């Protein structure tokens, strides 16, 4: 153990010490940028200085050995300067344009593709899954890897009508940006949790547990003489929030957990306001190691979008132009009662007008 006195509440290191000299010099004085090729950005300062950023995809789960590799590359090409993006890509910050090709080649050889800029698919924002989380209905990294293997061409090219943001979350807690993504994959439970009545009283506080249920499905009950709970089956929509507050209410189910697909969310204010993602496929089976149904479904959505959307139309903007009925027709997806909202604001999602394409 360290001998120095225990430090606390120091906060993160000051960012300035990590900024490359060109940034310190031109901080707040950038004039414009260009995106000369996939994965490469050049920012031009008022001073005329040029900063080159080379963006590479990562699996987000990084071994320290890989981080050291990145550090080495940064030393070799960027005076030791690099950053990560809000979507978990790594960016190398160069001042010497001539080094870009070599860096890209080296990254490529190491297995880290350069791309994700402009009108492309960038890395999938995702969560822990079976690698670390207790309430995961499916694995996160496995689905993401399987998907990105297929969507790879759209990462290393800029061939889409607009940016296409994909997110993944392994349960309804939706860590990440699933609720506002162009395409989102969400792990879902589909059965009422099983209650471990023997352990429940020891492990959980009843009032908190009862309050946790969005639909009020949980009622206090005496089971085998012990205080426990009862779940009204018809009120339960499998959100798993009871499990979050009480591990004795077991939501995970090997047979019935699966995945759902959502489209048409966004967060930028560009053109249209931010929007939530909407359900388009209620359920796909959990099929490791490569989740072929899910991969196929997402790929298909990307293709239909790419073929039909106009330039600068995000997924949501395209769907809104053509309308949801045509979206379901074009994609061939079945429309079911599950697509129709039945939670608090359900009525607000009904079509309250006769404006229809017949």
């Amino acid at each position: 153990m360290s001998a120095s006195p225990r430090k606390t509440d120091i906060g993160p290191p000051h960012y300035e010490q990590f900024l490359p000299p060109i940034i310190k010099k031109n901080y707040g004085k950038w004039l414009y940028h260009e995106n000369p090729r996939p994965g490469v950005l050049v920012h031009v300062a008022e001073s005329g200085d040029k900063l080159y950023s080379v963006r590479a995809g990562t699996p987000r789960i990084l071994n320290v050995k890989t981080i050291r590799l990145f550090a080495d590359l940064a030393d070799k090409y960027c005076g030791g300067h690099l950053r990560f993006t809000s979507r978990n890509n790594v960016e190398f910050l160069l001042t010497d344009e001539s080094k870009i090709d070599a860096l890209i080649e080296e990254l490529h050889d190491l297995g880290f593709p350069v791309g994700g800029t402009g009108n492309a698919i960038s890395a999938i924002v995702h969560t822990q899954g079976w690698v670390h989380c207790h309430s995961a209905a499916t694995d996160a990294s496995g689905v993401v890897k399987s998907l990105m293997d297929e969507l790879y061409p759209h990462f290393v090219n800029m061939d889409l009508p607009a940016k296409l943001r994909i997110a993944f979350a392994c349960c309804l807690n939706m860590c990440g940006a699933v609720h506002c993504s162009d395409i989102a994959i969400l792990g879902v439970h589909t059965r009422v949790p099983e209650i471990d009545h023997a352990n429940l009283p020891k492990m959980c506080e009843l009032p908190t547990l009862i309050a946790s249920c969005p639909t009020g499905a949980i009622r206090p009950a005496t089971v085998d003489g012990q205080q426990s709970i009862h779940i009204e089956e018809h009120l339960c929509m499998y959100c798993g929030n009871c499990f979050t507050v009480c591990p004795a209410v077991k939501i995970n189910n090997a047979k019935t957990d699966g995945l759902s697909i959502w489209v048409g969310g966004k967060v930028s204010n560009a053109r249209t306001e931010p929007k939530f993602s909407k359900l388009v496929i209620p359920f796909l089976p959990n099929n490791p190691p490569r989740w072929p149904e899910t991969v196929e479904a997402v790929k298909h959505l990307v293709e239909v979008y790419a073929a039909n959307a106009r330039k600068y139309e995000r997924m949501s903007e395209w769907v809104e132009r053509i309308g949801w009925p045509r979206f379901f027709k074009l994609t061939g997806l079945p429309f079911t009662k599950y697509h129709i909202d039945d939670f608090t604001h359900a009525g607000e999602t009904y079509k309250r007008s006769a404006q229809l394409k017949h």
Partner: protein
Amino acid sequence: MSEKKRETPLLDELEKGPWPSFVRELKKSADTPVIQDLLGQLERSYEEHLGHWKHGGIVGVMGYGGGVIGRYSDLPEEFPHIAHFHTMRVNQPAGWFYTSDALRKICDIWEAHGSGITNMHGSTGDIILLGTTTDQLEPVFSKLTEIGFDLGGSGSDMRTPSACCGPARCEWACYDTLAAVYDFTQSYQDELHRPAFPYKYKLKFAGCPNDCVASVARADMSFIGTWKDDIQMDAEQVRQYAASGTVDIQKDVCERCPTRCMSWDGTNLTIDNSECVKCMHCINVMPKALRPGKERGCTVLIGAKAPIVGGALLSSVFVPFIEMEPPYSDLKELLEAIWDLWSEHGKNRERVGEFIQRVGLGNFLEQIGLEPVPEMIAHPRTNPYIFFGEELHEKQA
């Protein structure tokens, strides 16, 4: 437990294909028993379609309530090296800028005291150190603070604030996102490390309405840069874009402007700036020709969250425009007023967005002493269920 490598035929499938493989990342430490057990349990999950983690008692470092997520295998006999497998959330530097040296130091600590596996980064923005045992938490913490790093948030505290790269690498930043995120993080170390709120409270700083940190979807408080005056235009560059053929100014710019406040006569682009809603689209399309105005600041929005319990929320306008200059006193006063009110009256696990809806935005504003303005709403109420106050008839009288 045998020392020989576990068979992972299912996971091995995920080493194939062009996208970088997390399995390969794990296997880079295949020689450690921890990773052997992690791979083993994960393979088991892949076979069974079932996770094998459970949460248990709260663990953490001395004096902190946040920053560590306790995790336990539910098959500890079979996978003893991950019987405890807690993650530590380390507060990232603003904008995720690093030097190779700083990264190497973190790697060294984590290799010595943890699994050697990380997430760069977690969805909230932290450096995630993925998996260690309870006894290693304190050593990791003290070594981290030695190299200048500290833990981030978890539980019912202020969560690790994050920011887009802003003025460091972007020509559109309308305020200094890095300065702001650093200042707020440092100002509220206690709120970050010692959960005392009804639930989590997230802050995210985006330099312009493109919102590259998705703050409007994921932050209890979103600081989105914007401007008040006219878009700066280089008319010559507009013509260049038109001439180059890459942009059809009428179709791609004017007709995609949400307020249709631009017009193009083939030579000149005119913007009726009084109608512009600062959506960024035209600027995004022609970065060499257009730039945000000079009178800059930010719009503060409040209340985004994921669906649990009452349904997902997007942030909504709270302060339509405010200059973002240190020490941000007005904003901090507001933030503290919110925390006070919400801490006193919020229910357990009620995010501030849900709290506002429960008590009513009007009442909420009154309590924290902010005037209601029409910018806060998409439209006034449509239902006539108005809680008129006593003052209504006092005023009349």
